[in-house]
């Protein structure tokens, strides 16, 4: 067989069921091998960035490694954004890129670029395969590295002549990576110490990040929270790791998190970070974050321990094992009469009552929050996966859509990649065809990857795009209004151009327009009912701002809140 065939046999041996890509010159021998037949479904994207985000959406929805494939040069560089996104959000991804012939490498040949060099700071590892006999072992290693330890992207760059070479293929049973030894065990003494501190805390909080989902530790987390009656806040990346309809869920921390959540973190005496990394969007001013709290930090990645906030009790290891052990220990403490923090839980409930999410309604405008609340009403309890772009709509989705099942909220948290939502939704649909997949998108984000709607229609991967259309780059507008004296600089996009509904139809989908609240529920219900790709263009109030807000670099207590007649309205009037 050829090297191209060997690549496909390797993917089959890994159990890959879908890959996302676009052919081009340097990857043609592998696409020729696909034409000869493979068990792996290939989804033809319209842009390599789309293919990469689809692979990410697939990985995040399924918990398996996503696979993206592209040609050399521009094909490979178009994958850089998804690779960087996967790096920041620890998404397991194998990217396969074609490369010019070995004899041409280094000569500035047509469509040549040093993609292993370009991506070096944003991959866990990368390989330039120089001999077709190494393909099996390299791909085996690539999948192993992508999914073991802290998940993340890897890149395998394969010259055209390697894909064409004739090779006797065998897929190795073992990986040979003497330098790759991610933690596999958890230190029992650390767990015991952590459990003692947690169980005797008066004001404990579990601060749950995306590592909990990657570590497949959601059931164990539920057990831990319930065993100890421990309140849970989930970060944007941790959203869906814990059922948000559960009485122990207390919102989301950070810049646009709920006030009660940030008050909980600000006042806690024991902060238990589980697969979370003290990102600046969560902590705000680091020195004022959870002041005085004893920090227990559980993570698979030792480099996260004490990177930003010193951990008093680090627990390094696979989170599933770690959280399960912690749950057992905490349960034992509770059985031995370490009291449930009733007063603290009552305080959190009181804060939640006292400081709910608020926004003003208007005769004139549909409010974006109403769109998200309608989506929540219509999808509550059902098997739905929500993806988002990045910006105001993403924050409203975090606040108003309550995730109930693990891996049901997929968003670009670390890199903040606008345009992530649509392709990620398509990838999620490929992973979970039985689920209803909804992309909550902004009009700015939509226009960055809208071409992939045709991938959705032609590949029979229907998604519902709920377009929160405020005719602006909304988050930038909000910052200009709040922090740049209202000087609007290149943020206006217009609400009716392009005509999003007709664009949806042009791509083979269904388009709808919603301009007031009366139409909203019926339109969304119909969109969710149809088994087709639908864009619901919701024309919302362009002046609406996301609250609460902790300005960048500020402390939790400096939070700005919505007020119907207060200073925020004055800010808006500027």
């Amino acid at each position: 067989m050829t090297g191209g065939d060997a690549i496909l046999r390797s993917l089959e041996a890994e159990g890959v069921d879908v890959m996302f890509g676009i052919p081009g010159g340097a990857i043609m021998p592998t696409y020729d091998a696909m034409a000869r037949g493979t068990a792996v479904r290939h989804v033809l994207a319209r842009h390599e960035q789309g293919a990469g985000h689809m692979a990410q959406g697939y990985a995040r929805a399924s918990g398996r490694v996503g696979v993206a494939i592209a040609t050399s040069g521009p094909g490979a560089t178009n994958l850089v954004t998804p690779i960087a996104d996967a790096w920041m959000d620890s998404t397991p991804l194998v990217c396969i890129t074609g490369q010019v012939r070995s004899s041409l490498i280094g000569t500035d040949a047509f469509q040549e670029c040093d993609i292993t060099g370009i991506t070096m700071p944003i991959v866990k590892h990368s390989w330039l395969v120089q001999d077709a006999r190494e393909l099996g072992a390299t791909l085996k290693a690539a999948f192993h590295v992508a999914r073991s330890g802290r998940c993340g992207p890897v890149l395998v760059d394969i010259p055209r002549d390697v894909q064409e070479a004739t090779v006797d293929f065998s897929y190795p049973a073992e990986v040979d990576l003497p330098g790759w030894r991610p933690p596999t065990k958890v230190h029992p003494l650390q767990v015991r110490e952590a459990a003692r501190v947690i169980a005797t805390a008066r004001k404990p909080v579990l601060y749950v990040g995306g590592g909990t989902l990657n570590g497949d530790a959601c059931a164990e987390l539920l057990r831990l929270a319930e065993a100890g009656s421990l309140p849970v806040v989930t970060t944007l990346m941790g959203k869906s790791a814990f059922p948000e309809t559960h009485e122990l869920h207390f919102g989301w921390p950070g810049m646009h998190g709920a006030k009660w959540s940030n008050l909980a973190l600000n006042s806690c005496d024991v902060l238990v970070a589980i697969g979370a990394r003290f990102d600046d969007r969560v902590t705000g001013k680091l020195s004022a974050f959870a002041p005085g709290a004893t920090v227990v930090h559980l993570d698979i990645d030792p480099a996260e321990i004490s990177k930003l906030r010193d951990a008093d009790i680090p627990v390094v290891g696979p989170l599933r094992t770690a959280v399960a052990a912690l749950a057992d220990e905490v349960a034992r403490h509770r059985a031995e009469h370490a009291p449930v923090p009733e007063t603290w839980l009552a305080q959190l409930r009181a804060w939640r009552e006292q400081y709910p999410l608020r926004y003003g309604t208007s005769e004139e405008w549909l409010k974006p929050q109403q769109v998200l609340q309608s989506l929540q009403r219509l999808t509550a309890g059902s098997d739905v996966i929500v993806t988002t772009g990045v910006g105001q709509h993403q924050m409203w989705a975090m606040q108003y859509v309550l995730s109930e099942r693990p891996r049901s909220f997929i968003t670009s948290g670390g890199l903040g990649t606008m345009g992530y939502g649509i392709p990620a939704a398509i990838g999620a649909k490929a992973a979970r065809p039985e689920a209803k997949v909804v992309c909550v998108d902004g009009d700015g984000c939509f226009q960055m990857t809208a071409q992939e709607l045709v991938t959705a229609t032609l590949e029979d991967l229907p998604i519902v795009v709920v377009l929160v259309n405020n005719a602006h780059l909304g988050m930038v507008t909000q910052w200009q209004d709040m922090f740049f004296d209202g000087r609007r600089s290149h943020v206006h996009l217009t609400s009716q151009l392009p005509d999003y509904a007709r664009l949806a139809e042009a791509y083979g989908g269904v388009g709808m327009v919603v301009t007031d609240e009366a139409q909203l529920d019926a339109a969304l219900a119909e969109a969710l009912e149809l088994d087709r790709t639908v864009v619901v263009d919701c024309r919302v109030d362009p002046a609406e701002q996301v609250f609460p807000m902790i300005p960048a670099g500020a402390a939790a207590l400096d939070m700005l809140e919505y007020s119907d007649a207060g200073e925020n309205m004055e800010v808006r009037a500027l």
Partner: protein
Amino acid sequence: MKHTLSVVVEDRPGALTRITTMFARRGFNIESLAVGPTERPGVSCITLRVDCTQHSLEQIEKQIHKLVNVLRVTELVAGEAVERELLVVRVSAAPEKRAELVTTAEALGGRLLDVGPDAVVLELTGTPEELDAFHELCHPYGILDLVRTGRIGVPRSSSRRRAPRRLAAIN
């Protein structure tokens, strides 16, 4: 504070680049760098000198340790390791000054490598501090070229902490 890190890596394309990229990416500056083979075929040792806080050092060690080609990261702690460096210098030396320069250099353990009409080439192997002193000594004569290899080292066999200090393992 200055620290010396000894990083044992698989000798693969890009192994060094991945380490230096990580330094650049996280804003750590490398003061000296020496790379060479070890007693094991296919395994190289990279010795790095960095000026950073203890907190940064722990971050560096943990980040390096995560790289796939890295087999071991050890800090060579002052007093518990033997460190050496090689200096080669071309010094301006007119014939009447030459004898004095060579004698002084040899008294410090330097060696004469080459003699030209107006200059000599000297080498010295020693601790980085000895090389600093030698550098100073050559200075008044007029240094035409000076290169240093960057330090290399191994833990002392008499060191009480025989096991490599691996901060990467937190637990």
